C-alpha cells in the first residue's frame, strides 16, 4: 500500500500551474501526462471525460489505473496509446512529446513501442492465431522485408504463443478459441514488436475469475521477466494488489 500512497501523491506535485514545457519529469518515468483534458460530444452536448489529469508511469512498473465505469480510464489509456488526441494537455514518452506528433510517427509508436491489449481481445477473425500475432510485424515491414524476415518472425511468434500457453493452437481461428485463449493470443500479439510499454484495457473484464487470474499472472510474470512497463486499466479493486503502483481515477481526475 505504500506504493499506492506514493503514486497518488506524485501527480499532485505537478499541479495545474506547472503545465508548461519545462515540466519536471522524474528521471525514471517512461511516460508522463500533464493537464490532460478530453471531452466527447453527444450531439450538441459536451461531455467532459478527463478534466485535467497529471500522472507519471515509471519504467518497469506494473501500474494499475482503477476507476469506476465512466471515470474516463479507457479514454486515458487510448490517449496514452496515441489512438486519440487530447483537447488539452501534454503526453510524454521517453521525454518526447507524442500527442502532437504527425500521424506517421504515432503509427510507428503504436506499432513498435506500445503493446495493446483490449477487453474484447480484438483479434482479426479471418486470421489464425499465429497470423494474428504476426499482424504488427506485417504492418511494420514492407512486403519484401516481411517475406525476408518471415521465418524469424514466425519462430518468435511461436515462442511467444508457447510462452502464453497457446503453443498447441497456432492454426486455429479466433472463433475456435475460448475467451482466455483469445486474450492470451492478444498478449502474444502485443509482445511481438518488443514494446517498451504494454497498455492493457480491462484485460480480464470479459473473463471468468480463473481465466482472468491466468491472464493477470501472465502479465505480472512478463513484467518480471522482460522488464516491461505495464499499464493496466480496470475497475476491479482486487487486481490492484499485484501492481507496483495504483492510480485511482474518479470523474476524470486523479484522486
Amino acid at each position, binding site marked *: 500500500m505504500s506504493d499506492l500512497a506514493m503514486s497518488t501523491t506524485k501527480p499532485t506535485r505537478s499541479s495545474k500551474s506547472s503545465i508548461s514545457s519545462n515540466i519536471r519529469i522524474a528521471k525514471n518515468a517512461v511516460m508522463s501526462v500533464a493537464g490532460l483534458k478530453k471531452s466527447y460530444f453527444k450531439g450538441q452536448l459536451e461531455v467532459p471525460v478527463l478534466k485535467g489529469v497529471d500522472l507519471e508511469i515509471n519504467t518497469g512498473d506494473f501500474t494499475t489505473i482503477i476507476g469506476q465505469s465512466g471515470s474516463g480510464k479507457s479514454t486515458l489509456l*487510448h490517449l496514452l496509446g496515441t*489512438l486519440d488526441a487530447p483537447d488539452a494537455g501534454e503526453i510524454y514518452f521517453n521525454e518526447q512529446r507524442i500527442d502532437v506528433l504527425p500521424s506517421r510517427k504515432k*503509427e510507428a509508436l503504436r506499432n513498435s513501442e506500445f503493446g495493446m491489449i483490449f477487453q474484447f481481445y480484438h483479434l*482479426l477473425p*479471418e*486470421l489464425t492465431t499465429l497470423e494474428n500475432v504476426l499482424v*504488427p510485424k506485417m504492418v511494420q515491414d514492407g512486403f519484401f522485408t*516481411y517475406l525476408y524476415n518471415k521465418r524469424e518472425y514466425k519462430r518468435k511468434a511461436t515462442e511467444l504463443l508457447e510462452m502464453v500457453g497457446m503453443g498447441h493452437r497456432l492454426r486455429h481461428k479466433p472463433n475456435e478459441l475460448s475467451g482466455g485463449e483469445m486474450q492470451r493470443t492478444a498478449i502474444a500479439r502485443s509482445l511481438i514488436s518488443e514494446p517498451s510499454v504494454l497498455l492493457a484495457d480491462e484485460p480480464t473484464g470479459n473473463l471468468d475469475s480463473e481465466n482472468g487470474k491466468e491472464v493477470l499472472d501472465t502479465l505480472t510474470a512478463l513484467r518480471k521477466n522482460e522488464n516491461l512497463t505495464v499499464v493496466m486499466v480496470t475497475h476491479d479493486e482486487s487486481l490492484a494488489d499485484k501492481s507496483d503502483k495504483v492510480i485511482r481515477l474518479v470523474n476524470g481526475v486523479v484522486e
Partner: protein
Amino acid sequence: MYKLLLSWRYLRTRFIALASIVSVTLGVATLIVVNSVMAGFVDQMKNRLHGILSDIEIEAPLMSDIPDPELHADVVRQIIGDDLQDLTCVVRSHALLSFEFHGRPWTQHVILLGIDDETFGKVTDFEPYLTNEIKKERFNFTLEETGYTRFDRAGWPYRREKAQSKRDFDRMMREHDQLYNQAAQQYVDNHPLQQPDGSPATQSAQNNEPVKFEFAPLPAMTPNINNAFPVENDPSDANDLAENQTQPPQHLPGQTVMMSPFDPHAHLRDKVNLEDLFDPMRDQHAGIVLGMAISEKKSLDEDGNPIDVHMLLPGDDVQMMFLSAGQQMRAVSEEFTVVDFYSSNMHEYDSSFAFVPLSKLQKLRGMVDPLSKVGSVSAIQIKLKAGADLDAVRDKLKAEFPGAEYYDIRTWQDTQRPLLSAVQLELTILNILLFLIIAVAGFGILATFFMIVVEKTRDIGILKALGAPSGGVMSIFLGYGMSLGIVGTGVGIVLGLVFVNYINQVADLVGWLTGREVFDPQFYFFSEIPTIVSPTMVLLVALGAIMIAVLASVLPALRAARLHPVEALRYE
C-alpha cells in the same frame, strides 16, 4: 503484407461479395462474345464488300468516259510506283436485263460492267466467287462443258439439250400446222360455199383452186449474205468467235430471188438454213456473268422448306438493253449467253452486277474511237500491294494526278463508307451498352463494399491500433475490390472464350431448345458463325472491368480509411 493477406482472406470468406461480381463476369463474357462475333461478321463483310471493288478506283465523273485508258494507266503507274500491284479498266453502264422464265418475261435493272478477262481477276476478288470450277482457276467468257457443280444441269450439255427441245417443239408445231391446214382444206373441199338462196357458189364451184395473190416482180437481185449479216472480223475478240465461225450458205450466182415487201428475208428462208448462221447447239453469244441473286428467287418446295429457284442457268441466253455512250444516246439491245454466276453472298453485289467482255461492251456502246481504234473506259481500277496504305495512295493520286479534280478518286472503303460507318457505330454502341452492364455491377460492388466496411469496422480499428496507416487500410479494400474484379473478369474471360469457341454448338443447342434455328446459314450465307478473338480487345475489356471494380471500391475504402480508431474499437 497484411493488406494482401486480408484482401485474400476477405475474398475467400465473403461469398456474398462474389455474388456481386457475377454481373462483372457476365458483362465481360458478353463483351467478349459480342465483340468476337461482330469482328468475325465485320471481317467477312469487309471481305465481301471489298469483293469486286478494287482498292482504289479512278472514275470519270458523271458517267462520262476516260478517253485514253493506257495513257491514264501510265500516269497512275508513275504516281503510285512500287505500291502498285495491278490495274484494269472497266466500262460501267446501267442496263435492263430481260429473259423468259416459264414463258413469262422477266426484266430487271442491273449494273453492267465491261471487264477485261485478263486483268480484272487480278485487281479484284472476282474469280473466287464464280460458281464454275474451271473459271475459278482461269476466267474467260466462254461457256464450259463441265465444272458447274452448283447446278444439276448447266453449260454446253444443257444448252444443247435446250436447243434440241426447242427444235423438236418447233417441228412439232410445224407438223401441227400442216395437219391443221390439211384438215381445213378437206373441210373446204367437202363443203362448197353456197349462195344465200341455196345454190352453190358459182365461182368456187367453177374454180376449185384457192385464190392466189401475186406481187409485181421486183428487180432481180443476188443477195449478198455477207452484207445481210455483217460480221466483223476482229480476231482479238474471241467472244465473237461464234459469229466468225458462221459460214454463210453459198447461193448460186444468177439465181433469181423474189423479195417479199412484208418479209424481206422470206426468200432466204428456204435457201439458207438459219442454224448454219447461229446454231444454239454449237454457238454462244458473247458471254455474260450474272450476279447470283439476279435470277434467283426464294420459294417453298412441297414440304414447305425454302429452296432456291434458278430462273437462269449457265447456257441460257438473255437480252440486255443499255444506252450507248456519248451525247446522242440511243438504246442498244444485245443478246448474251450466261456463262457463269457471281456469288459473293453480298446481296447488294449479287443482285445488281452483270459482267460482259470489255471490248464487246465498248463496241456496242460506241466507245471505240473510229480513228485510233482506242476504246474509252468508265473507270480505272487499281490494286495495291499488300500492306500499302490505301488512304495515303488515294491522297497522293488526288494531289498528283493531272486534273484530279475532274476525276472521282476513291478507295473501296470510301465507296462503302455509309455501311462501314453504320457497322462501326453499331459496334461502338453495343460496347457502351455492355460496359454499362459492368458499370451497374460496379454499383453492386459499391453497395456490397459499404456493407463489408461496416461489418469490418472493428477490424479496421484493430489494425489502426496496431499502427496500420490509413493508406494501408484503404489499400486493403482497394486490393479487395481489385481481386474481386480480377476474379470476376478472369472467370468472365474464360466463359466468354469458351462460349466463342463453341458458339456454333451453343447456337445449335439454343435452336434445339427453342425449336427455332438461331443461325440459319441460308440467310447469313455463312456455314457457321464467324468469330475473331482479338487479344487487344480481351485485354481492354479485362482492364476496363477491373478498373470499374477498383473505382467502385474507392468510396468504401476511403470511408474505411477515415474511421477513427477509438470509435471503431468501441463499435460492437
